[in-house]
């Protein structure tokens, strides 16, 4: 909402500088988003009086104009405007003044010029040259009382507040509403505009009729009738105000409806009365299939829940949104029926959204306007039509008000005021603030106020609303500031959250960079990383109104995001790139919110660094990702094991399921080159995924301490030859099951001579120990013999000598 301060000052004295006023309004909840200073660009342009107009000696259409700027300062300029005349007050740009060049649009300093042999010491300016309008036929003539020598800005300039309003305050979608705020904030009085006029015509009831058929959607309809109007341009002052407020002048009748809407906040509509069949208005729901040609030239098919304004036969306007083309006021209109109504706010909003048409009327109606406003606004507009259109107002108004507007009264106790604000305010101060805002306010000792809400404040309904009124005018910064006291609620454990944060720290510590990617994606991208069958059985949730095809589905995996980010960062990263993300996957459930599964996904790719950090030829792969995962699971104290498995996105033979307590909680492997290639990745990529929700029950609690061994360990190596398909993990499991084995780890895997084909040698470093005594070499040899025997029986292993 644009509020021109010149217009605003008609209703309230502005006692503060614009910047200070804007600050105070903003603090009070009326946010001034921008202060626009029109005329600010008129640098060095002043008011001058034309003293003398003489013919140009060398040109018929040019004249020599002498202007006076006060204190004896005179300049003679060459001027081509036909309307220049003595004693006019004009806008004068002397040498050095900065003007907008009509061709380049840039500001240039005016230089002295010689025109047809005569020197010209400046310019008398047209509206176009001042950037006010496109008018350039003649010069701009200023009001006779413009002060000679003064800056043009002081005569024509204006400051406009562009307000960013909140949807609860439709009353501020009006100059008068803002004037009320200004008055309350600065201790001034509001001057209400006049609504007095002469009713020279016949009784309105004998000429026109209004019927409300659907009162649930139209609580009140006021109509005025003005005959003998002459449709023409509205006066300059009204046009200027409309333009300053951001509206385009049309003709005097339409301009008055817009003017009163901007002034009071009540949208109005003017019908050409002669075009209304049956001389009546019917406010009703649209009929099935009913069509209406709107003022914007579109034809709309109406739905049965939409409210229309109809004449005796057909819809002539879309109630509260837009008028129809057929009943529009034109140059031939002589009788105007003026509509000033109140409509059901949600209904207006539904209609406006269904047609995607937002108008100055609909944005006001949808916020819920006062039911008392239609009468006052109708009177104000009728007065202006009588004065500015030469019209004759019919006697009386039609006022169909099936719902009687009534005052809202609210009781506010001192106790509640204290409870909400944390401070006692003197009753006199509360009364003074509320009265300044137009509230009726009575103090009922010992402890309460009875407040009557002013009719325009449709947003105030309960005591706490009144408290906000007091607080915002006093100023939130003036109220006390304290710290919370009282009991701190007991801490509820958040294990899922804790787990996620540990995962983040562990992965970052292992060298992975965290990323955060969008939760929405598209089907093609999901199809790159998920098996078609999985996409079909777990189809992702679709967004009904996506911003673009790229973000249409809630993701059911994170794989694509990690691979996509890896691909995007491929350039300029010669070494290892390691990324992870923790986020939700969304798995649909029938008729319910989707299951949101906390997931971590990580990728590692690139060539490993040497001592200097330079990339070597050795690529990071499966075991690098596994190292990260092992570290993570160890941080979490989850006893996991790995089992070879297969998955659409992974390379067969290089894929492992992460299994805890018999349940798969994640995947680890090398990404299938086909999948990587679909993201434009040529290098090998290792990836891991964990379902943190599935992992959660297995996360270890506090560590239970094991006594530090009292007797020393003895280290011995053991190499066995097993078939290629026997996993080292199985061998370790067997070794670890022996009582004297404290630790076991692999230190070499060997294939080739003399190991037969199809078999491999795996070497283990085993640490033996006993809680009872120091082991002898013989003790260890015996245990080792038993291990070899078991490995032979169970896994077909033979000792490698």
């Amino acid at each position, binding site marked *: 909402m644009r509020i021109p301060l010149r217009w605003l000052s008609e209703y309230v004295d502005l006692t503060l500088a614009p910047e200070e006023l804007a600050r105070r309004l903003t603090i009070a909840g009326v946010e001034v988003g921008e202060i626009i200073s029109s005329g600010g660009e008129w640098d060095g342009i002043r008011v001058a009086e034309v003293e003398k107009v003489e013919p140009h000696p060398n040109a018929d259409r040019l004249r020599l104009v002498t202007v006076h700027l006060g204190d004896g300062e005179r300049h003679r300029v060459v001027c081509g405007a036909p309307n220049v005349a003595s004693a006019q007050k004009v806008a004068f740009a002397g040498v050095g003044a900065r003007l907008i060049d009509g061709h380049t649009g840039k500001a240039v300093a005016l230089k002295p010029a010689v025109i047809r042999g005569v020197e010209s010491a400046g310019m008398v300016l047209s509206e176009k040259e001042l950037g006010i309008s496109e008018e350039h036929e003649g010069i701009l003539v200023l009001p006779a009382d413009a002060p000679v020598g003064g800056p043009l800005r002081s005569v024509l300039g204006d400051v406009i507040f562009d307000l960013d309003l909140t949807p609860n305050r439709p009353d501020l979608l009006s100059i008068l509403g803002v004037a009320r705020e200004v008055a309350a904030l600065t201790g001034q009085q509001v001057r209400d505009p006049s609504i007095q006029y002469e009713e020279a015509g016949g009784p309105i009831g004998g000429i026109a009729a209004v019927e409300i058929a659907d009162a649930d959607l139209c609580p009140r309809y006021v109509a005025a009738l003005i005959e003998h109007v002459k449709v023409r341009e509205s006066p300059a002052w009204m046009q200027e105000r409309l333009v300053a407020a951001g509206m385009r002048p049309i003709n005097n009748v339409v301009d008055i409806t817009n003017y009163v809407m901007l002034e009071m906040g009540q949208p109005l509509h003017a019908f050409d009365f002669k075009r209304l069949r049956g001389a009546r208005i019917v406010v009703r729901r649209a009929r099935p299939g009913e069509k209406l040609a709107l003022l914007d030239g579109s034809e709309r098919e109406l739905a049965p829940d939409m409210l229309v304004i109809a004449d005796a036969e057909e819809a002539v306007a879309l109630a509260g949104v837009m008028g129809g083309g057929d009943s529009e006021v034109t140059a031939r209109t002589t009788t105007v029926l003026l509509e000033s109504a109140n409509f059901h706010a949600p209904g207006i909003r539904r209609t406006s959204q269904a047609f995607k048409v937002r108008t100055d009327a609909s944005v006001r109606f949808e916020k819920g306007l006062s039911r008392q406003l239609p009468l006052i606004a109708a009177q104000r507009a009728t007065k202006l039509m009588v004065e500015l259109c030469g019209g004759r107002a019919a006697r009386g108004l039609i006022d169909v008000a099936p719902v009687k507007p009534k005052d809202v009264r609210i009781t506010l106790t001192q106790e509640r005021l204290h409870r909400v604000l944390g401070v006692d305010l003197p009753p006199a101060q509360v009364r003074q603030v509320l009265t300044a805002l137009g509230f009726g306010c009575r103090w009922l000792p010992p402890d309460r106020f009875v407040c009557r809400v002013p009719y325009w404040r449709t947003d105030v309904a309960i005591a706490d609303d009144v408290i906000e009124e007091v607080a915002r005018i006093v100023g*939130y910064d003036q109220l006390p*500031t304290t710290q919370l006291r*009282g009991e701190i609620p007991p801490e509820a454990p958040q294990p899922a959250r804790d787990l996620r944060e540990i995962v983040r720290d562990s992965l970052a510590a292992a060298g992975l960079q965290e990323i*955060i990617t969008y939760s929405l994606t598209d089907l093609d991208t999901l199809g790159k990383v998920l098996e078609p069958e999985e996409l079909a059985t777990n189809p992702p949730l679709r*967004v009904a109104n996506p911003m673009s095809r790229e973000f249409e589905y809630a993701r059911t995996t994170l794989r694509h995001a990690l691979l996509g980010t890896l691909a995007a960062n491929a350039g300029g990263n010669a070494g290892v790139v*390691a990324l992870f993300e923790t986020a939700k996957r969304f798995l649909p459930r029938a008729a319910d919110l989707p299951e949101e599964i906390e997931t971590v996904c990580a990728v590692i790719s690139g060539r490993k660094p040497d001592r*200097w950090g330079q990339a070597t030829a050795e690529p990071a792969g499966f075991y690098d990702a596994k190292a990260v995962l092992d570290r993570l699971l160890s941080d979490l104290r989850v006893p996991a094991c790995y089992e070879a498995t297969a998955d659409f996105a992974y390379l067969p033979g290089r894929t492992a399921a992460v299994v805890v307590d018999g349940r798969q909680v994640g995947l680890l492997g090398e990404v299938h080159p086909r999948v990587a290639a679909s993201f434009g990745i040529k290098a090998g990529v290792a990836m891991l995924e964990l379902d943190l929700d599935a992992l959660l029950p297995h996360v270890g609690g506090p560590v239970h301490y094991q006594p530090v061994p009292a007797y020393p360990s003895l280290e011995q190596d053991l190499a066995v030859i097993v078939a290629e398909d026997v996993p080292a993990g199985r061998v370790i499991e067997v070794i670890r099951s022996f009582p004297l084995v404290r630790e076991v780890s692999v230190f070499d895997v060997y294939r080739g001579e003399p190991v037969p084909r199809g078999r491999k040698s795996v070497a283990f470093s085993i640490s033996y120990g006993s809680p009872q005594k120091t082991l002898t070499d013989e003790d260890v040899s015996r245990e080792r013999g038993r291990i070899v025997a078991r490995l032979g029986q169970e896994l077909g292993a033979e000792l490698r000598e």
Partner: protein
Amino acid sequence: MTSEIDTISAIQQAALRELAAASDLDSLDAWRIAYLGRRGRLTGVLRGLAGMPIEERRRVGAGANALKERLEAACDERRAALEEARVTQVIQEERLDVTLPGPPLPHGRLHPITQTLRDVLRAFRDMGFQVAEGPEIEWDYYNFEALRIPADHPARDMWDTLWMDFEHDGRRQMLLRTHTSPNQIRVMEHSQPPIRVVVPGKCYRFEATDPTHEWMMTQVEGLAIDAGISMADLKGTLAEFARRIFGQERRVAFRCDYFPFVEPGMELRIDCFICRGEGCRTCGRSGWIEILGAGMVHPEIIANAGYDAEKYTGFAFGLGIERIALLRHGVDDIRYFYANDLRFLRQF
């Protein structure tokens, strides 16, 4: 007899000569083994004592033991000298270029939004708030209706919504939550006052992106309900938060603002980093930067939770983590956060 004594003095001569020639710790060790080791020359003499007559054994033994002591002392002395020479050599000849890097250690970093979020949550935890979480895909009921934003309410324009393709009773009912405020309702559904909770999470808006707008964002919702909580407590809590995150010298200011689920409503502003309150382009010439929206929980919402709205009051607030991260790090384009360019992320 004499031969044994001769032997001792021969050993002494040879040992001292060779010791002087031992130029490093390895040759010193070899020397020690050759003379003083279990099979060393002097040890051999000592071992031979057993077969000697008592007189001779005493004489030769005394000489051999004296030599042993002397050689051991000389060995220690030599060792100390060699060790010192070694240190001197390191100092003089094996100086390191201290500007060279160490071998690379993997170094991952947390996303700047995660870092800022953790700092924000820590600030509130220190003030007694617990952390809870809620779903990102929500019902219209929690996101709007229960927050006093019914269908066809103009306040819905404050949150441009991404709706899920799910209709019930002819209406879209499922959405990507537009703010973390649904958790006010969710928390109240399963707890009783006193409540002090902060709820972080991702939110989504139907929004075109530009340097100050992103369609996915991270918010933190706060809620405190108890008997005796006032707007003064809200102001104090938020001012304390702002100082913890932005520094003790930070000035804060409050202005009236509107959210349907609070009354009175407010906005917290801090003095502009760039101009320190003078007014500049960053702060839109106001001298202040908006940080978050807040207010006293609307009594209707308190009553709907089944609490006594006469007795219990409370406050709620919602803040955007991206905005705080932008301000803290001087980032001038919000789109950097989710573009995941490693050249950006690795700076944090």
